[in-house]
């Protein structure tokens, strides 16, 4: 009978359970996603060759994610408890034995935990497969040795989630069997929390700021602290963020409440709501801030690797292509490109050398490239004939494909004419490497490769395009994939965290807003109050999170040369997504809270 009642209770509140369940599924699937990267040693080793400490970074990433999961499950469990307390209290009133109640809540918690973990892992496998395909296709990346179905990840996800749910079940059982029935029945009537005394807040603020300063300081001097940088900064920044939220924001709100502004329209109510909840929210605000920083940081560095791919390729030579005896097909293809510079030279092959006519280099100077890491731009300089004669490597780089192991020699017109052999043409051009031009460039490249005498494509690099595709990209794409993959994963986790916490509060708010409507508050004002309240919960983590990212990017100075280059792009993308998400949550919240008004 009791079992029936319990199941019925779930049926009646299936919407709430849906929120709970989907939140847990998202959380466990993201954890799985992360673990497919972090427990795949071969993938990390192969793709992270240029980042020697990558495995180390991932270990701490796992620790942080475990902490976040801990907070998350704690919230999920509180949500479950607040849903069920009344029901179980009622069962007790009806004469259910405590042992039976304990058994029921234990089974319920474990069942929810188990089901959501199983579904989460399945979703995680689907997601990682999908993400692998999407990221690889859309960005042209290759992630060697990445496996979407990774048994180690499955194992770790189960160990963590079932372990945590086991603890939660034990806690719930303990709580339900100890609390008197009346208290359970009236559990929803919570009393206001007293604010901490001012000096305590002050100390907290001080600790928070000190921790953040240490964390930032360590990151800014990463070279000095070496491998200790990550654990120290992770610890100090996480707890620093928490203390700052717990003190400065709380005090700020209570000060705002005393101003005139609080007596305008519903401002007082909104501030009251926030102050009432801020202690409850500080943990989730911290988690959201950290997730936001991780997501934004990961995406920014991911895109940073993309930038550096292009830039590194750009700095190989001054030309997109050097073509030897360009075919008519190649020439028509070139016409479709946006060509910045083009020069064509005659050459003859004889014996062990490739001969060029030097006067042609006077009329159309051969260029080399220089890269300025500060402004992140390339500049081109002309090579004089004397320089080229002294070191012909810039030219020889191109001839290696069709004439391997032959020297490049510049001769005057007279000598050139005297050399035996057919006069041929070499065409060097620099074109804009845009997204649309990729297929044309690829065709030109393939046509050129057909002429090559080299077996390995990496030995037949005819300019920057080939260098990008066959040398630089394979080096960075694993990392780019990692960055974007993690960015999306953290973003999803952030979304589910915020949604979960905010929506779980929505049910309490239905009554409050109904009350305000009865007092004669216009609907537009009610909507505005909700928009403000939720807005603040979005804005606070955004501000702190962005600061974390801006400081944290320093860690990538070694790998990315200038990690701040072009960050407006990921920041903009992120801002748009975040804003969009705000409107979705706002819309859902208003639907729940103002349904009957």
């Amino acid at each position, binding site marked *: 009978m009791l079992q029936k009642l319990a199941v019925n209770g779930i049926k009646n509140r299936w919407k709430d359970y849906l929120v709970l369940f989907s939140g847990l599924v998202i959380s466990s699937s993201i954890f799985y996603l992360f673990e497919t990267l972090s427990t795949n040693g071969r993938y990390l080793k192969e793709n992270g060759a240029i980042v020697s400490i990558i495995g180390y970074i991932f270990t701490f990433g796992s620790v942080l994610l475990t902490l976040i999961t801990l907070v998350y499950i704690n919230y999920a469990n509180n949500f479950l408890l607040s849903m069920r307390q009344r029901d179980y209290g009622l069962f007790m009133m009806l004469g259910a034995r405590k042992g039976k109640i304990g058994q029921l809540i234990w089974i319920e918690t474990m069942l929810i935990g188990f089901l959501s973990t199983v579904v989460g892992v399945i979703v995680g496998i689907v997601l990682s497969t999908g993400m692998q395909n999407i990221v690889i296709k859309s960005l042209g990346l290759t992630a060697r040795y990445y496996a979407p179905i990774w048994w180690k990840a499955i194992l770790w996800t189960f160990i963590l989630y079932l372990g945590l749910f086991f603890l939660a079940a034990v806690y719930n059982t303990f709580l339900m069997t100890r609390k008197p029935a009346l208290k359970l029945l009236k559990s929803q009537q919570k009393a*206001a929390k007293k604010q901490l005394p001012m000096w305590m807040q002050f100390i907290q603020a001080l600790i928070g700021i000190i921790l953040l300063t240490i964390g930032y300081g360590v990151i800014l001097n990463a070279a000095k602290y070496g491998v200790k940088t990550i654990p120290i900064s992770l610890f100090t920044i996480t707890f620093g963020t928490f203390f700052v939220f717990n003190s400065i924001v709380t005090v700020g709100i209570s000060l705002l409440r005393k101003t005139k502004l609080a*007596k305008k329209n519903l401002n007082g*109510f909104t501030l009251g709501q926030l102050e009432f909840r801020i202690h409850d929210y500080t943990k989730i605000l911290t988690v959201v801030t950290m997730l936001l920083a991780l997501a934004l940081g990961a995406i920014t560095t991911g895109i940073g690797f993309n930038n550096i791919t292009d830039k590194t390729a750009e700095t190989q030579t001054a030309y997109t292509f050097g073509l030897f005896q360009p075919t008519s097909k190649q020439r028509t293809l070139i016409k479709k490109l946006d060509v910045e510079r083009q020069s064509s030279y005659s050459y003859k092959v004889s014996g062990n050398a490739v001969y060029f006519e030097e006067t042609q280099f006077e009329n159309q100077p051969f260029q080399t490239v220089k890269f300025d890491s500060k402004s992140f731009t390339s500049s081109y300089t002309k090579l004089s004939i004397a320089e080229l004669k002294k070191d012909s490597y810039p030219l020889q780089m191109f001839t290696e494909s069709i004439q391997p192991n032959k020297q490049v020699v510049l001769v005057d017109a007279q000598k050139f004419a005297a050399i035996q052999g057919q006069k041929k043409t070499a065409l060097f051009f620099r074109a804009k490497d845009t997204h649309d031009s990729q297929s044309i460039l690829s065709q030109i490249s393939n046509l050129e490769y057909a002429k090559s005498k080299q077996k390995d494509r990496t030995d037949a690099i005819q300019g920057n395009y080939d260098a990008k595709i066959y040398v630089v990209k394979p080096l960075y794409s694993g990392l780019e994939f990692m960055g974007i993959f993690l960015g999306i994963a953290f973003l999803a986790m952030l979304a589910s965290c915020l949604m979960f916490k905010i929506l779980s509060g929505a049910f309490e708010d239905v009554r409050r807003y109904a*009350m305000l409507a009865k007092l*004669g*508050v*216009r*609907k537009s004002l009610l909507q505005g109050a909700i928009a403000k309240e939720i807005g603040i919960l979005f804005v606070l983590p955004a501000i702190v999170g962005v600061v974390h990212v801006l400081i944290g990017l320093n860690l990538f100075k070694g790998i990315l040369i200038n990690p701040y280059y072009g960050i407006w792009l990921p920041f903009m993308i992120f801002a748009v997504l975040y804003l969009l998400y705000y409107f979705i949550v706002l819309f859902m919240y208003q639907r729940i809270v103002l349904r009957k008004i």
Partner: protein
Amino acid sequence: MQETIIEVNNLRKIYGKKNEKQYEALKAVNFSVKDGEFVGIMGASGSGKTTLLNMLATFDRPTSGSVKIKGEEIAKLKGNALADFRASRIGFIFQDFNLLENLTAAENIGLPLSLQGVSAKKIDAIITKVASELGIFELLKNYPSELSGGQKQRVACARALVHNPAILFGDEPTGALDSKSARELLELMSEVNKNMGTSILMVTHDAFSASFCKRIIFIKDGRIERELIREDNQNRSNFYQEVLDLLGTFEQ
């Protein structure tokens, strides 16, 4: 002649959709309330008294008939006009207080004024004045959870009166109070009625509460069955006895 505050004509309320089983909660109710009156509406559970109050207070819409408050037809009000009407013309005291637990007593009381765009300085002055009149000045900084039932209802009363509404509605305002607090609240309401001239309409099923009114309307099965008026020279305990007597025969 006194001004009419509420005028109810042929008010009917039917619950349930047309093709479902319908229930007629109010059947052609007619009555009016004059300025400065203290009217009680009595009836057993299910008699329709709460339905009637919800309709008068604009929380629910009548199926047919009209309700006018200060000459304004409230059944036609919608959206912002409805909200503004509630905010400016009506004060309401609920059985379960309905205070916002995340605001202090002062903030709760000041809320209707904030909504009307009254300046912060003026709001403080009015709150102080009303709170002193209702004897809750010391409680202004407290949160609802720190107040007793009686204190909460006084705060609610102050909130309902702070914007000088045309009428104060009460839905079993003493329902959740102990007898001492209930008596204090009713005395307070009588004083407000007498000294501030606020018209009050209160729904109750409790004869003691009703005896504080000057006129009592008895509802049974959605109809007004009787009316009782307290004579000018009649004292309260005498009136209480009369109400009890009437109830004794009325319920049968």
